[in-house]
């Protein structure tokens, strides 16, 4: 890259202008640490002398104010730094403006971005001044350089150096940087991790770069890729070059002939001496204690060499291919921490190949640590999600390195990976790797791509098939042992589940299907959106990358971003840091996070689309399911709402009954003979008939009431000879032992007017024929 350094003083001369862009103030890049101070020290004398202050366009000031205006309570750590820097910058500008070193009154606020302000100045003042813009934005540099060429003006653009100089790149290398930027942004768009600004950059650069190339007559930009990237990364990755080792194996070797067992020999065991054939020559060592027994052989310590182990292949795995692979791997001096590169081939006393030595891996198999929640909690109780992300990154770094050597791991599985407390991953089992056309003869169905059928040894794995295994492994590390295709309602045949390609977890609007029971969906929920997007698209048969899972490099970028996300401002839900969150992730920063009123478990409000509010039930699902229940109806009720183990409703039902007469719900203890107190049968005080209490009036039944109200026909008014007094009234007098009145007048009533006939009858002496007894009684009565 060729860069020219300009002295900014040149542009503080009269008739020239020097501009500074926002990113120079905001970004804390090591390339220009202290550069701003030096810039002003350099230019101050000229500026003062020429009265030509450096221009910081109004839009730039506005952008700085926007950062500075963020209330610190609402921003997370990462942004706190931005707020701090922008405030420093504003204070500095104010000070510099007061001294006449800077002017901020140029340009206007109407342009959408500061970039546009610079281009406008270029348009309208380009013929008056020679100008220089200091910016670190490649897109803006390209735009300005292109425009100045088209206008045929001198318009310098470059970035700041820590010496306060302006570093101006030549056109070709600027063009290259633009292309690399476009590449990186496109990658983000492909990954589904792009922001709006990223997409805008892609659009802008896509249009800009070809024009730039034509105008300046530049050589086309060639994407640098490792020689072997096709083998490791596939042809469709668009991957930016990684360091390609000169020691790499062939990128596309032909498949070797079928493997054959080596003639049987006696295999050394603990305490036996073996021969070590390394690049440095021959030596003898003694096998120490047995460290482990795997599917392919036994691993021994080496007496006197604590950092080495020796794997002795068992008779079924001592093959020509394995011997050849060990020879290839030991012929080159690979050393990489965390990769069990064979160091030397090992022979028995007869000089027959029996295995190889390798560095001793530290840690334990993922199989018995990360992949088993109970063991994981016991082994690494303090690990957070970020630690698992570190494990993924450590794994990916090693895989990416092996891929850059055109080595495929082949049988990626949690028994071939070890992890220690420092989150360093070790890759072991080098003898099964695929390289130089020797296939990896073993495999693990859980990590076997759907395209792989038949015997592992019969064909070479493709890089895409390897990437499938990587994706599954990453998922199983993050979700601690759960397989991405495991779901409820199946017969557990993992090969078929992989073939079906149904990924059960939810992504945005795409609902989850048959997610396995347990905490898994919470763990999934707390992964950041971009990670989920990539997993979903990789695993689901409808996903964009189902046919070509991401490369190790791409995952590495994604997981590095994941790590930053966890420490950054976008990570608003504290449970996202937990390996085992106990609930779904909060939808947004303002989603209420609170505790279950009963068990104290963390809960989040559930967004109700129709109402536009969060639903915040008091109890968590578990408590609602597990809370005390009424022993009668089984409905969940808080313990304090239960009396004698029953809810209020059931107690009421149990203790109350309807009165058989009026139907009123009445406590059973008040019911007598099925009737409430109101409906009790009481004897009528007159006739003695049993009658409902409510039907009694002053103790009388209806009939007796009616009867009592009737005039007593046996008592006639002495005046008018008509019945005049009710039975009730008679009773009243009798009860008081009073004489019963004998006329209307005596009871303060008037005799009714008589009809003519009655009047006559009244005047006439009575001729009623009475019996003797009647006459006697009447006489007695009237006396």
């Amino acid at each position: 890259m060729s860069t020219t350094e300009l002295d900014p003083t040149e542009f503080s001369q009269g008739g020239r202008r020097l501009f500074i862009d926002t990113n120079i103030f905001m970004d804390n890049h090591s390339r220009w640490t202290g550069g701003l101070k030096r810039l002003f020290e350099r230019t101050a004398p000229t500026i003062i002398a020429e009265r030509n202050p450096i221009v910081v366009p109004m839009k730039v000031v506005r952008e700085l104010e926007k950062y500075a205006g963020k209330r610190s309570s609402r921003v997370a750590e990462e942004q706190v730094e931005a707020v701090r820097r922008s405030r420093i910058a504003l204070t500095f500008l104010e000070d510099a403006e007061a001294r006449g070193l800077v002017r901020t009154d140029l340009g206007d606020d109407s342009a959408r971005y500061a970039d546009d302000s610079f281009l406008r100045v270029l348009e309208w003042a380009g013929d008056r001044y020679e100008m220089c813009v200091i910016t670190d934005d490649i897109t803006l540099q390209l735009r300005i350089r292109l425009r100045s060429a088209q206008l045929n003006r001198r318009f310098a653009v470059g970035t700041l150096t820590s010496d306060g100089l302006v570093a101006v790149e030549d056109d070709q290398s600027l063009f290259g940087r633009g292309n690399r930027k476009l590449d990186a942004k496109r990658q983000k768009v492909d990954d589904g991790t792009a922001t709006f600004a990223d997409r805008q950059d892609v659009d802008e650069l896509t249009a800009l770069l070809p024009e730039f190339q034509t105008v300046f007559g530049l050589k086309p930009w060639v994407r640098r890729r490792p020689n072997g990237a096709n083998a490791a990364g596939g042809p469709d990755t668009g991957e930016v070059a990684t360091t390609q080792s000169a020691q790499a194996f062939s990128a596309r070797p032909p498949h070797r002939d079928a493997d054959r067992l080596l003639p049987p020999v006696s295999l050394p065991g603990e305490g036996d001496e073996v021969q070590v054939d390394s690049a440095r020559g021959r030596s003898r060592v003694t096998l120490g204690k047995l460290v482990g027994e795997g599917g392919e052989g036994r691993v021994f310590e080496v007496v006197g060499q604590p950092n080495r182990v020796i794997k002795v292949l068992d008779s079924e795995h001592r093959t020509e291919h394995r011997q050849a692979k060990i020879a290839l791997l030991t012929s080159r001096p690979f050393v990489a921490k965390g990769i069990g590169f064979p160091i030397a081939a090992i022979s028995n006393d007869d000089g027959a190949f029996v295995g190889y030595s390798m560095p001793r891996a530290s840690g334990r198999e993922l199989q018995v640590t990360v992949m088993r929640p109970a063991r994981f909690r016991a082994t690494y109780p303090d690990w957070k999600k970020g630690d698992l992300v570190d494990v993924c990154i450590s794994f990916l770094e090693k895989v990416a390195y092996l891929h850059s050597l055109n080595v495929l791991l082949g049988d990626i599985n949690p028994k071939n990976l070890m992890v220690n407390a420092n989150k360093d991953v070790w890759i072991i089992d080098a003898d099964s790797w695929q390289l130089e056309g020797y296939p990896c003869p073993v495999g693990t169905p859980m990590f076997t791509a759907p395209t792989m059928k038949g015997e592992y040894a019969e064909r070479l794995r493709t890089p895409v098939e390897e990437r499938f295994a990587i994706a599954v492994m990453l998922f199983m590390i993050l979700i601690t042992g759960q397989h991405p295709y495991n779901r409820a309602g199946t017969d557990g045949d993992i090969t078929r589940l992989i073939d079906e390609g149904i990924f059960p977890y939810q992504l945005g609007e795409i609902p989850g299907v048959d997610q396995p029971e347990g905490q898994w969906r919470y763990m999934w929920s707390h992964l950041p959106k971009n990670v989920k997007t990539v997993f979903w698209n990789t695993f689901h048969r409808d996903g964009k990358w189902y046919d070509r899972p991401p490369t190790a490099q791409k995952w590495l970028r994604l997981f590095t971003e994941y790590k930053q996300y966890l420490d950054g401002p976008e990570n608003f839900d504290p449970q996202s840091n937990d390996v085992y969150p106990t609930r779904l992730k909060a939808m947004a920063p303002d989603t209420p996070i609170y505790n279950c009123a009963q068990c104290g478990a963390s809960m989040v409000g559930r967004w109700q689309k129709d109402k536009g509010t969060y639903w915040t039930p008091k109890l968590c699902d578990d408590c609602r399911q597990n809370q005390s229940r009424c022993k009668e109806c089984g409905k969940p009720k808080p313990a304090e709402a239960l009396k004698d183990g029953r809810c209020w409703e059931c107690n009421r039902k149990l203790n109350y009954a309807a009165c058989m007469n009026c139907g009123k719900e009445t406590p059973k203890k008040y019911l007598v003979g099925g009737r409430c107190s109101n409906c009790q049968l009481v004897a009528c005080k007159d006739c003695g008939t049993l009658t409902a209490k409510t039907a009694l009036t002053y103790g009388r039944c209806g009939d007796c009431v009616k009867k009592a109200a009737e005039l007593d026909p046996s008592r006639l008014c002495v005046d008018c000879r008509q019945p005049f007094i009710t039975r009730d009234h008679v009773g009243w007098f009798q009860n008081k032992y009073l004489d019963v009145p004998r006329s209307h007048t005596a009871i303060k009533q008037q005799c009714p007017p008589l009809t003519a006939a009655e009047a006559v009858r009244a005047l006439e002496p009575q001729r009623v024929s009475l019996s003797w007894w009647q006459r006697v009684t009447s006489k007695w009565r009237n006396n």
Partner: protein
Amino acid sequence: MALKIGADDLVENPTPRVPVSLCIDTSGSMLGDKIRELIEGVNLFYDAIDEDDDAHDAAEVSIVEFNSAATLIQDYASIERLERIETVDPSGLTFLGEGVNLALDTLEKRKSVYSGSGVLYYQPWLVLMTDGQPNGDPDELERAIQRVTELVAAKKLTVFPIGIGGDADMAVLARFSPNRPPLRLQGLKFKEFFEWLSKSVSRVSRSTPGDTVKLDLEGLAGWAEL
């Protein structure tokens, strides 16, 4: 609540399970040394699984006994929840068909629990041990044989019929396992048998579901005669 705890245990462990069903004869003829050695063997089996990292998380064992009836004495449970057997009092007849059917029913239930919760599992194992002649309902016996052979043919079951002593009806046991001949326990080598069984379970637990696991047939020599 008890059921709920079982379910939590099930779903929190993502390890694919190896369901092992022990279907054992506890008829009167097993009285004495046979049953004592058998119980010792089962408990040893439990200990061996407990000590093996992989089998510990994967194995789930259930036990059905048969005499004049079939009884489920241990439903499928992980090693941590298995109850050690203290004593069994052998008595009565040999309702082998009924026993196997109960074991298969229990297995079907367990499989549907796995499926419902989303737990992967390996091909289940059925260990059938008897020292005599089946004398339960002949229809039940035929049904049991048919069910087992169908499951084995569909690769949904691995069956180990084991004859104990000279009176075991090897012909009937053979009908349960068309592919592999039944094995006759040498003397009372229950301990050796269960050691072999636990090793085989560990082997399977270290593989992943779908893998073809080769049984350690050489290891049979220690306890079986073909």
